[in-house]
């Protein structure tokens, strides 16, 4: 199945909003760290509901925010959720970014990068479109050290890339970025039920749930264009 088929379904059954709510627990911390100046142009790669751009407009007064998504239904929903003139959405693929060289200041991407058909090439594309000194903030919950995430592929038809922390740093450098930061950001807001509630439908043990959310959470890798 294609990105479009898989994620059009997600968008039409409301999973875009569900992700926004859950990802916000950590995405807000990622967004807050970005070295964005008022008036700058930010790209949100795999934008889903487009919440990141709405937040950056409010908190950092971005000049323009563009959300790219491979799913037409996601892009249509995202466009519906805002009427801000400085925010726009487009349909496109991670593998062939439709942006000119040095055309964006910074890129944010949350829980999307690993769906790229060729992630090393996507990084080269990002290196091409971000201006010197601009940053890409790449946040993923699906990665090698986050063991609880390994099974996610079973329920998703699009092939996912599962890199380790080291592999992320290496790949960013290979594509020409300086790696400026790597961090794991815990989700401190998700409610973890008391011991007596386990096993639950999703979690064998309370420790496994803690490990997933509080210990590993989201892997953030920050690359800067030299």
């Amino acid at each position, binding site marked *: 199945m294609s990105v479009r088929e898989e994620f059009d379904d997600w968008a039409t059954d409301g999973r875009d909003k569900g992700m926004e709510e859950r990802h916000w627990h950590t995405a807000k911390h990622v967004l807050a760290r970005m070295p964005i100046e008022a008036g700058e142009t930010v790209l949100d790669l795999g934008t889903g509901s487009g919440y990141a751009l709405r937040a950056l407009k409010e908190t950092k007064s971005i000049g323009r925010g563009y959300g790219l998504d491979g799913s037409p239904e996601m892009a249509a929903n995202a466009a519906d959720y805002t009427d801000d*003139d400085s925010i*726009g959405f*487009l349909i496109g*693929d991670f*593998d*062939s970014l439709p*942006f*000119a060289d040095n055309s964006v200041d910074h890129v944010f991407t949350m829980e999307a990068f690993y769906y790229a058909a060729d992630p090393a090439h996507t990084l080269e594309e990002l290196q091409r479109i971000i201006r010197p000194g601009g940053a890409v903030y790449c946040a993923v919950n699906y990665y090698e050290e986050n063991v609880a995430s390994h099974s996610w592929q079973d329920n998703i038809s699009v092939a996912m890339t599962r890199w380790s922390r080291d592999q992320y740093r290496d790949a960013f450098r290979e594509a020409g970025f300086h790696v400026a930061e790597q961090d794991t950001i815990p989700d401190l807001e998700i409610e973890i039920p008391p011991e007596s509630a386990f096993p639950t439908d999703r979690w064998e043990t309370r420790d496994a749930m803690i490990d997933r959310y509080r210990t590993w959470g989201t892997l953030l890798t920050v690359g800067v264009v030299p």
Partner: protein
Amino acid sequence: MKESLLDIICCPIDKHDLELEVDEKDGDEIISGTLTCPECGETYPIEDGIPNLLPPDMRDEVTA
């Protein structure tokens, strides 16, 4: 989409600048139209205000 988007988008295949043909507008907002790459001749539709810049083979993967 706004016309200002043209400053930064390009043909996903050969990265050439695109040319805009507007079919329908609502104020500043381009509701439908076509983006054409003068280099390779590919065209990209704008529908419901959203440009579709998927490479043509991916765009046509699913029949709408």
